[in-house]
């Protein structure tokens, strides 16, 4: 059967030490048995490695940083669409999703560009600042947490929390703090990078297990693969991981999709304690950087997302391989100055 040609724009080309999911999403799409994809990379910085991976990314355009707002992004996407006839955009950064969700209807109605994203209310409800309430609503166990917007709030934490604590940035990054002084240091670091609020969360001892999953927006879970990190970098990122058989994790994901009717990819970050209690510590509203493991285990979630975005009827995956590992590596590409110059000055390559 001939593959359907499709132009897909993908963000998250930063295949760095804290990698974005763009490159593994693109690899998954390139391996699709149904689609012959032309990949348009959307980048924020000139040194995102994916810009120079020409075997994976056909053409890249710089787009404005999320802080510039939805209007600027829309203008840039209009320009890119004129040149590339985009049919679908897969955003992969938490910080940019707000703008893309806001623009989803406009993109569809004015340019015919599809997305497959959660609704704004779904997206906002699972934000770190709202996670505790979200857990209650969906019957999930969540560590106690609090949002901080001022230094003055730190001293009072000891009334309700026991140290150590997790201190988390609004979008990314987390540090463990053993004293109020360490909370203050983390507060400064995280607020200057990601803005306010900074979230403080009860520390749960145990091992971290994650699930990457895809929902069709009607309450149905299309696929899910749980993974345990095998090797973790100093930034807490999985540098290798293994797929596991954990029905309780899958149930947690299934229940979440059922009650929230989440549309699109997501990652659940969970702590499994020695007593086998499961605490949901974070919901990332997009595929994780290790999404290619799901493909390796027999569930091509990015391909399924494309089909869902096109309005196809997609049946849930029924199985995945347990005991498959991913092992990440770093690789030096040699890039001609011309290319760097072009993306830096013209905003496209």
């Amino acid at each position, binding site marked *: 059967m001939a593959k359907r040609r499709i132009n897909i724009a993908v963000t998250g080309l930063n295949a760095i030490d804290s990698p974005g999911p763009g490159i593994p999403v693109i690899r998954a799409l390139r391996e699709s048995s149904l689609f012959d994809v032309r990949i348009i990379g959307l980048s924020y910085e000139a040194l995102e490695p994916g810009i120079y991976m020409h075997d994976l990314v056909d053409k890249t355009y710089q787009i404005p940083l999320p802080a510039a707002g939805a209007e600027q992004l829309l203008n840039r996407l209009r320009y890119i669409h004129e040149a590339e006839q985009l049919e679908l955009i897969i955003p992969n950064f938490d910080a940019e999703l707000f703008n893309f969700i806001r623009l989803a209807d406009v993109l569809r109605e004015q340019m015919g560009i599809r997305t497959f994203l959660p609704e704004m209310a779904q997206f906002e409800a699972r934000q770190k600042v709202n996670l505790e309430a979200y857990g209650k609503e969906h019957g999930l166990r969540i560590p106690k947490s609090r949002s901080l917007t001022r230094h003055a709030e730190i001293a009072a934490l000891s009334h309700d929390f026991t140290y150590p604590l997790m201190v988390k940035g609004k979008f990314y990054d987390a540090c463990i703090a053993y004293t109020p002084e360490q909370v203050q240091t983390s507060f400064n670091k995280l607020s200057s990078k990601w803005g306010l609020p900074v979230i403080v969360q009860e520390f749960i001892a145990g*091992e971290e*297990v994650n699930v990457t999953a895809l929902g069709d927006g009607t309450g149905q879970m299309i696929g899910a693969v749980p*993974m*345990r990190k*095998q090797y973790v970098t100093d930034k807490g990122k999985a540098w290798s*991981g*293994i*797929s*596991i*058989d*954990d029905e309780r994790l899958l149930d947690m994901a299934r229940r979440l999709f059922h009650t929230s009717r989440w549309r699109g990819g997501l990652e659940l970050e969970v702590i499994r304690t020695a007593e086998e209690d499961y605490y949901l510590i974070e919901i990332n509203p997009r595929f994780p950087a290790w999404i290619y493991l799901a493909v390796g285990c027999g569930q091509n979630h990015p391909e399924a997302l494309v089909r869902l975005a096109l309005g196809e009827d997609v049946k849930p995956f029924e199985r995945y391989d*347990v*005991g498959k590992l991913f092992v990440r590596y770093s690789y030096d590409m040699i890039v001609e100055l011309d290319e760097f110059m072009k993306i830096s000055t013209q905003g496209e390559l």
Partner: protein
Amino acid sequence: MKLKKNIALSDTGFVFDPSTGNSFTVNPIGLEIIGYLKEGRSAEEIKQEITERYETDGPGFEKDLADFVNMLQKLKLTDGHGKATD
């Protein structure tokens, strides 16, 4: 005491627990014992099998087996909470 059903064992002594993702390596005698446990053999049957084939005394082996099973339980490789000599 039984090993969890889904534990994967290789001929080379690699033990994989698919529910936790943990993996371990055991020496040939450990592999043999895990194999017996997986078959559901009792401690008495394992003792008989091992003492017949290897130069070891019964009481000494019983203690080693109890330690080994205790370790398997700590690593959550066993079903339920049976004692080492169940």
